[in-house]
């Protein structure tokens, strides 16, 4: 990952910890709903935390394309950067 996304990646990993009861190592390739244990309501909690953390709003069309932790980090970077 590039330098400016590394802090976002670290922060995102921290937000994802509650959904990682098996304690797997989270990498940019980790599939959020596949490898972690997060259902549709918990996803919205996570999205809300991300939005509050960065003061952004993630549109639904973008959310539907996010599969991996790396996708989420890139989306945050893109939206937060555009502000």
């Amino acid at each position, binding site marked *: 990952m590039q330098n400016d996304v590394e802090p976002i990646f670290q922060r995102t990993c921290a937000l994802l910890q509650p959904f990682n*009861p*098996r304690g797997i190592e989270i990498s940019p390739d980790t*599939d*959020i*709903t*596949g*490898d972690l*244990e*997060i*259902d*549709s*309501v918990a*996803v*919205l909690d996570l*999205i*809300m935390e991300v*939005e509050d953390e960065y003061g952004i*709003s993630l*549109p*639904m*069309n973008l*959310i*539907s*394309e*996010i*599969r991996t932790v790396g996708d989420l980090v890139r989306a945050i970077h893109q939206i937060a950067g555009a502000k």
Partner: protein
Amino acid sequence: MDSPTPAANASLRFRAGDFQTLADALDYAARGETGFNYYSVRGELKTRLPYAELRTSALDLAGRLHGLELERGARVALVAETSPDFHRLFFACQYAGLIPVPMPLPMNLGGKDAYVRQIGRMMDSASASVAVASSDFIGLVREAGSERAGMLMATPEEIAELPFRDGFVPFGPDEPCYIQYSSGSTSAPKGVFVSQSCAVNNTRSIINHGLKIHQGDRCVSWLPLYHDMGLVGFCLTPLMSQMSVDYLGTADFARRPLGWLRLISENRGTLSFSPPFGYDLCQRRASDSAIGEFDLSSWRVAGIGGDMVKVGVLERFAERFEASGFRRSAFVASYGLAESTLAVSFAPLDGEIETDRIDKRELARTGRTVPAAPDAPPEATRSFVLCGRPMPGHQLEIRDDLGRTLGEREVGRILIKGPSVMEGYFENPIATAAITTPDGWLDTGDLGYMLNGQLVVTGRSKDLIICNGRNIWPQDIEWAIERIDGIRRGDAAAFSVESPDNGEQVVTIVQCRTGDPERRESLIREISAAVRTSTGVDCEVVLAPPRSLPLTSSGKLSRAATKAKYLAGVFTPSPSVATSAVAES
């Protein structure tokens, strides 16, 4: 931004839904000041759209659509965001004699592929000639519609730039109104074909009988406009009675549920509905300070629909928000389904929620509901909520599996008849025939009984799973599993069982051909991941040997028999990651 549209018109006379068509109703409402208001996730008013402005832009867009020279009644698929553009285009179709088909929005993280397949099948099923979505979603629509030759796919802005052609004729009283896709699984969608007559009859009954709407009532809604409760309850009913509506997006509500209550509090809302799940979400999120800020005393009808009403959830909500001025007599239970446009019955207004506490064993043994003894232990009883009498002109009957009419307190299938019942599913006579009796009743597939003239619902359409207010068809879960390498068609069965916390736990039984423990372990993980990604629910995965799933006499998978075998302990749960994770949560 200025203030929202007023709750009541200054001089235009209130009319309680006595219109022949939606276009007539909009023509009339446009003479006043009321209309729709759209709020952001942070509670700011984004757009106000008085009915007068809605009518002007709908008429303009109708001319643009008319310029496409489509046959009368051609289908226009609309991705139903809670936005002014959706409303403008929905009513443009009414003026242009085209049938709007509201389509859902993606709701899951990583759910893009499943969503594209879903709307692709809907557009096919409706044979859509046009599909419209905002710039956020048009890419997904283009992907879904890439194989539909000749279908125009455009944003609202692009529709507005088409050449205007005069001479369009609005839908008349004997013509269609819209097609709604909330029935049937994603893999085989069934479009409820609603006529103008059904739409005006159902809304008129809601206005005059179900909710007794009067001048000054104000609606607040976050319900999706691609579902009957959102579209009919909180778009068409307000239009027919010239009410103002304050809208919050569905995804915005799910993220910040208290925004719903804040809007009711600030705008003095009087009518708002939700499945039980919405009340539960608010009750769990509310901090004490938030409760002090709200004034919910204006809330006259807090309706519950869309799922079985669970009394405990409502109790907790009423207790939590009593300090905000919420009155528990505002709760109104209801029963309805898209096949009946929306509503069938409402419990009486201004009363407490009425329940019937019955003996569980007697019900299982005889199919009759007998009041439980006052000292019966809770585990031997079950409380069901009374959902009211059918609205005038609408009929209800309870029948057994052989079609015999049952009496008071006997549990059977709920059948309905009346002016709101659809003529059928769009271009799907087989599915229509499957739910129509020879004597002209519609079999809802739901189970219930009658008590003092009121309907009591005990179970719903037999295979449907409802998780967090969302309807999930087991076929869609099975379908997601069957796409995994090494699993074949017919290998998976999905159903739900009651979980210890009164919610629903999804269980999947999957036939597999490998005995290798490592391979089995990874298969279980792949299955739960596939189910989570496609439908957003956690499930318990149980592996079973080939040919162990029970079939019906016609060779189809029997989910009910599979569930019975599971509950009887026939399938040995695998000592798996997925199972243990479920047990912890």
